């Protein structure tokens, strides 16, 4: 168990710079989720912490100690890979105990620790099986077990749930969270799924093209995005962006409004009119997709019981000024 510090961490592959300097202080036992679209450098950042990629600039400290030059095994970390990376010819128990075996832990202690982890993860009946004789969810658990038995100070997860079906993903998400709480181990978790990020994270890092656009607690990030990218990426359906010039802003500025902050009224009665192009009733709520005169698509989220416009009909959109977020032409939030 330890703190983790990234200080202006940078990474270049040859001439291409993929991480442009990330800073974060992770407290002991904190669950940090790195979230962002594909190719933004999440895995690269995680792999640098693991020691699987060299660090081009800046410093990584685990428990206050600089680890830039250390091999993965000396960093006191454990990693769970996206495709589990279980050793195919070893049994579940051997897979989990392999790291300890290399560390020359006494056999009895390995067995005890594997047993303990297996109990925790409900893997006891499968200890003798080979990975190929397990289901996806069970393999996922073995990968977790392999990380747990080593009692590392930091857990690293790279999209560990992306190979599971939707239902299992939700279940494993809960299990990972509970496990991390129970063990109190600092965790760094990469995902491109914002729901996973929102539900798991104590704090999340929203990455955009190699830059940490915002770091904060999920609800804070949601309520108060620092950039247009964050506003658009976190939240589903995404934030609507309207040209601010139409509402008294400067040219090039954008106005962001969350779908739930928009209300529909009669045409002409709101701040701007749009034509309803499609309506998605989801039961408790309904999504109304509209198109403005200039072609901008806007989504409104309203209660399932609220009155709906007819498809193709004009409707007026209104919102409270306090809910709108202004962004400059570079996407930075204006306050």
């Amino acid at each position, binding site marked *: 168990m330890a703190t983790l510090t990234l200080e202006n961490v940078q990474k270049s592959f040859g001439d291409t710079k993929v991480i442009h300097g990330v800073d974060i202080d992770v407290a002991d036992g904190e669950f940090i989720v790195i979230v962002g679209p594909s190719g933004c450098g999440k895995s690269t950042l995680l792999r640098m912490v*693991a*020691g*699987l990629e060299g660090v081009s600039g800046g410093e990584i400290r685990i428990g206050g100690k600089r680890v830039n030059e250390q*091999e*993965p*095994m000396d960093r006191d*970390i*454990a*990693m769970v*890979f*996206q*495709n589990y*990376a*279980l*050793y*195919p*010819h070893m049994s579940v128990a051997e897979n989990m105990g*392999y*790291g300890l075996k*290399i*560390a020359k832990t006494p056999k009895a202690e390995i067995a005890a620790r594997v047993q303990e982890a297996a109990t925790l993860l409900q893997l006891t009946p499968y200890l003798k099986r*080979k990975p*190929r004789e397990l289901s996806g969810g069970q393999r996922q658990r073995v990968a977790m077990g*392999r990380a747990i038995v*080593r009692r590392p100070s930091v857990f690293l997860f790279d999209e560990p749930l992306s190979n599971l079906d939707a239902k299992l993903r939700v279940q494993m998400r809960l299990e990972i969270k509970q496990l991390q709480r129970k063990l109190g181990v600092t965790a760094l978790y990469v995902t491109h799924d914002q729901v996973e990020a929102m539900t798991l994270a104590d704090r999340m890092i929203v990455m955009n093209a190699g830059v940490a656009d915002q770091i904060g607690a999920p609800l804070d990030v949601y309520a108060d995005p620092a950039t247009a990218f964050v506003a658009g990426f976190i939240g589903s359906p995404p934030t609507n962006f309207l040209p601010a010039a139409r509402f008294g802003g400067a040219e090039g500025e954008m106005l962001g409004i969350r779908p739930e902050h928009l209300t529909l009224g009669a045409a002409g009665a709101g701040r701007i009119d749009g034509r309803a192009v499609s309506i998605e009733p989801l039961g408790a709520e309904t999504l109304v997709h509209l198109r403005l005169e200039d072609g901008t698509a806007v989504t409104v989220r309203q209660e399932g019981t609220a009155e709906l416009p007819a498809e193709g009909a004009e409707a007026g959109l209104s919102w409270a000024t306090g809910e709108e977020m202004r962004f400059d032409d570079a996407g930075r939030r204006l306050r």
Partner: protein
Amino acid sequence: MADRHTGMVEKRGAGLWLTHAGLILGVLFIFFPIWLAFVASTVTQPEIVHPPMPLLPGDQFLENYRKALVSGINAPVARMLANSAVMAIGIAVGKIVISILSAFAIVYFRFPGRKLFFWLIFVTLMLPVEVRIVPTYEVAARFDMLNSYHGLILPLIASATATFLFRQFFMTVPDELAEAARVDGARPMRFFIDILLPMSRTNMAALFVILFIYGWNQYLWPLLITTDPEMNTIVMGIKQMFPSGDDIADWPVIMATSILAMIPPVIVVISMQKLFIRGLVDSEK
């Protein structure tokens, strides 16, 4: 699953009989010369040279085989079989060890000249043993390797084909496996021994069969490098059994030797075949 597969190609009635008749005929056709050799190894010399050739085994089986194994013509066949076994196993094991290590180096390490070395190995694929046999002989002779096991084995031990094969296999092993091992604390050789080797088991078995037979069937190289009959291998030894002058060939003993020469490769193929099939059925990756 086996049921479904036979079901898929199932033929009925006449078709079934025809295919079987065809197969049996083919087997008989290919097996006939071997049968003749076996028959010839169980009769006496006069019975062979007087036509018509017998088609059924005679009563000299024990006599001929004992004679071949114990005294042979130039050297006892038992001795030649042992030489061949040492050579074939030496070549097969040596080739596998060297090529799996080179493939490991080429796939998992970045070192200067890595591409160059790979292509150098690859280029040697294009040179058959016969092309470089004179310089190889020269080198072997200078190192005093004539009439020795290492002389039989070492010059044939480098294998571009096997290196290439293992390289292709290693490239299909997911990178994450190597990374997981690194995080687990395995240094490169540990990863090689604990993870890559067990995963290559079936590939090694397949190669062993092929290379054993390759080694067993070597003819030209043992012919050059061994002058002492005690160091003869069996395949070249059979040829040496033909008389050079006016002597008459001792056909029953030569035939018994031929039959004996076939047995070890057959045993290797059959015993390794089981491992093959097991490897194919529970593929590990």
